[in-house]
């Protein structure tokens, strides 16, 4: 020990060597790489969430406003009996009011123009008059929703006009132009085509007969050899066969020869030749409807207020009237049942297992069971509900009671597990202190542990409820996707629908308005979930205790 020589060469020098420095740089680079992977991973996850939400918002936001018309309606006392306002002739009142705004619509078009308004217009008027009987004899201005196609038109979701020709057809015509066969003839845009007047199919007559249509087509086909599509023949106007017939009639000798014939082109192609983009009216609308719509628009009667109906109306076949109230009510009832069953049962189970149960095989079995139930796929709970609640107990299909029961079985494990965690988090010192002053086990539980654990329990319960709210598959299996056009007759044992199943069924509706409404419904559902989660997080933050 007297020798003070270091047993190793002075390490300090080594750390400053080039090699060591390079090595350290490399090690730090690896560290930064790992950090970068983490950032990339998080960006991907958050980015995907953003894309998901953005795609829903983009399709869904139009559904949050609804085009409405402020229609002045004269409530004619001749048509509405003050004694019995419910049975008035409201349909004709609405029609008259519309006719006043858009005068001069011919009789046979009035019905179709009337379809600019929602088909519920007369019921909206009826309900208003029934409630305000003093309106009879006066002119009232009611905001009425437009029917779905016009709502979509006003919002710019569907166009007023469509391209008459597809891009393929435009290309064909371009090809014809490039080959120089497009020409003006008799003041009409025509195609100058070589036609072989096939003696096999044409009889010179007189009068000439034969398959002139086929000849015209064949001649066109010759110019577009690689196109195998019958719609190319739409290029020829209807009088194409007649053009050949006329030539043959004029000169029967051309049979068996190839001659040049001018075929006038159909209207859209003529427009195309003039450099215009040919348009046709969207077949969803008639011209009369569009004219009337323009008049209404010019008079400034249209506006797009926030679509409260989306939240407060029940479901409807008509997108402009369809709302989520039925689904929200159904979900509420199902969640109510779910809460009333799973909350007390969950707490009782958790308390028993955590505080009272003796450690034996039986309680082990219960524990294993609960852990496993937490991870059983939701569709299996649907199967259980189908077989047991509907099949064995014969409960009615589609009702919130059964839906709530199935959901509560799913939520139970979540509540039990979080409750146990919350109970565990209460330090033993509190229990010991209470036991030490002579409280019974039950008293310790009731007076000290449960109140302290309650915020944690509530948080878990809310999260479980939020899961249940978003659950679709088991509800589909027990048929909780009924069509509910009115919220008045809802109850635990009445058929109902729920938010997620409503989304599922709206997605299957042909009407265009439902496309955005589906996304809007998703947004509403996400809104509810967000609120529940925020409440849960707030609870956790507020009552979080560090022991």
């Amino acid at each position: 020990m007297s020798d003070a020589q270091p047993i190793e060469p002075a390490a300090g020098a080594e750390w400053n060597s080039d090699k060591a420095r390079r090595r350290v740089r490399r090690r730090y680079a690896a560290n930064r790489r790992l950090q970068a992977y983490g950032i990339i991973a998080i960006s991907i996850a958050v980015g995907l969430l953003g894309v998901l939400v953005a795609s829903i918002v983009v399709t869904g936001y139009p559904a949050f406003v609804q085009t409405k018309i402020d229609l002045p309606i004269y409530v004619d006392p001749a048509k509405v009996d003050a004694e019995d306002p419910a049975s008035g002739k409201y349909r004709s009142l609405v029609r008259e009011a519309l006719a006043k705004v858009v005068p001069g619509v011919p009789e046979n078009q009035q019905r179709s123009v009337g379809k600019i308004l929602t088909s519920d217009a007369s019921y909206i008027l009826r309900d208003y008059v029934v409630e305000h009987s003093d309106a009879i004899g006066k002119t009232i201005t009611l905001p009425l929703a437009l029917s779905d196609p016009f709502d979509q038109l006003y919002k710019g979701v569907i166009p007023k006009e469509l391209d008459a020709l597809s891009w393929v057809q435009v290309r064909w015509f371009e090809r014809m132009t490039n080959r120089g066969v497009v020409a003006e003839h008799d003041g009409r845009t025509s195609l100058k085509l070589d036609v072989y007047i096939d003696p096999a199919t044409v009889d010179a007559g007189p009068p000439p007969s034969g398959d002139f249509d086929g000849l015209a087509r064949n001649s066109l086909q010759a110019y577009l050899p690689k196109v195998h599509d019958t719609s190319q023949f739409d290029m020829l106007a209807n009088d194409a066969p007649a053009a050949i017939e006329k030539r043959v009639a004029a000169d029967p000798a051309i049979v068996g020869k190839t001659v040049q014939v001018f075929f006038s082109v159909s209207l859209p192609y003529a427009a195309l030749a003039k450099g215009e983009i040919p348009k046709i009216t969207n077949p969803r609308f008639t011209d009369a409807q569009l004219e009337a719509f323009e008049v209404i628009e010019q008079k400034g009667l249209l506006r797009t207020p926030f679509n409260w109906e989306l939240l407060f109306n029940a479901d409807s076949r008509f997108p402009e009237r369809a709302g989520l109230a039925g689904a929200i009510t159904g979900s509420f009832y199902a969640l109510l049942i779910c809460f009333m069953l799973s909350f007390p049962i969950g707490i009782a189970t958790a308390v028993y297992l955590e505080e009272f149960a003796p450690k034996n095989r039986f309680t082990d079995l219960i524990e294993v069971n609960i852990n496993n139930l937490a991870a059983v796929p939701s569709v299996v709970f649907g199967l259980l509900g189908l077989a047991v609640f509907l099949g064995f107990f014969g409960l009615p299909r589609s009702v919130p009671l059964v839906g709530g029961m199935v959901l509560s079985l799913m939520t139970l494990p979540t509540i039990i597990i979080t409750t146990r965690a919350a109970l565990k988090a209460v330090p033993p010192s509190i229990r010991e202190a209470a036991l030490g002053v002579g409280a019974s086990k039950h008293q310790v539980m009731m007076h000290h542990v449960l109140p302290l654990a309650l915020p944690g329990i509530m948080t878990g319960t809310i999260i479980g409820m939020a899961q249940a709210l978003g659950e679709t598959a088991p509800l589909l299996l027990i048929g909780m996707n009924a069509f509910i056009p009115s919220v008045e007759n809802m109850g635990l044992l009445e058929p109902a629908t729920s938010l997620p199943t409503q989304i599922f069924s709206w997605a299957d509706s042909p009407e265009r308005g439902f496309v955005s409404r589906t996304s809007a419904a998703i947004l509403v559902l996400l809104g509810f979930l967000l609120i529940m989660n925020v409440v849960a997080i707030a609870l956790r933050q507020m009552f979080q205790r560090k022991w």
Partner: protein
Amino acid sequence: MNRIAIAASTLAAAAFCMGAPAFARDQIKIVGSSTVFPYTQAAAEEFGKKTGKKAPVVESTGTGGGMKIFCKGIGEGNVEITGASRAMKKSEYELCTKNGVTDVTELLIGYDGLSVAQSKKGQPMDLSKEQIFLALASEVPDGDKLVANPNKKWSDIDKSLPDTAITIYGPPPTSGTRDAFVELAMHKGCGGLDYFKKQKSELDKKAYKNLIKEKCTPMRQDGPFIEAGENDNLIVQRIEADPNSLGIFGYSFLYENQDKLQGVKISGTAPGFDTIADGSYGLSRPLFIYIKNPHRKVIAGMDEFIAEYTGDDAMGRDGYLHERGLVVLSEDELKAVQERAKKGTKMDAPTS
């Protein structure tokens, strides 16, 4: 804790008050085809709004499933009405009779067009039913035997068709739309092929029918045909995003999406209300509802609901069912249907 317990049980009792079961059923129950479903829904909604009564409960179960439920028996636990996208089959009628469901009224409510459609961005197509069969069947004739469908591109079927991969979205076998498509397009299509024509001349009628049923029904499972679930809207959105693909679905979906989709012509005829109603589009089918007459005097509102459904406001030329995409009946047909509905005419036993 006690206060919480009291509050919770009060809440429970209150919930029970709200949901106390009604003792006699006062709501009509309807099941059946998913094609008839939207029309029945519309009628149910209108009925509810007009009368202020409870709107009927409508559930979409598919035609076959609906028949099974409908024919389970009479009585409060059973449904009143089922919708069908084809006429009741003999076997189903027998099931009904066996279970005491004998007094049934059959009402034709209109026609529904199946349409084959594609994106506007795609190249317009014009197909014959034979070509449809060759694109979709699981086995196709090759010379004088049947082989697994080798066609991957449209141009494999016919040089005149585009040189793109065959991609067709269609309904799953559980759906009535599939049933109808198979009968209207596939069976007709294979009947037009030389191989089957030859068989027809050789076999007797029944054997030929069985052959068609057996050989022309299975759809290919190797990719080009995609069973897309019951959700027609998803098919619409998929073919819109995919210009070279086709989709098979109810005409109302095409009607609603005309700015994005175009109908595929079948042998030169484009789908439309007129071509479907006069049968020239060749993929249209009748829609029915079936009503249990004994229930009419027990369940509140049945007569009114049926009157609403068959009324001019609903089934007429400008009725709201037309607005939802139903191809409506001619005036004479409608008169007859309304008459039957009112009287509750008992249907005859179907022959097949």
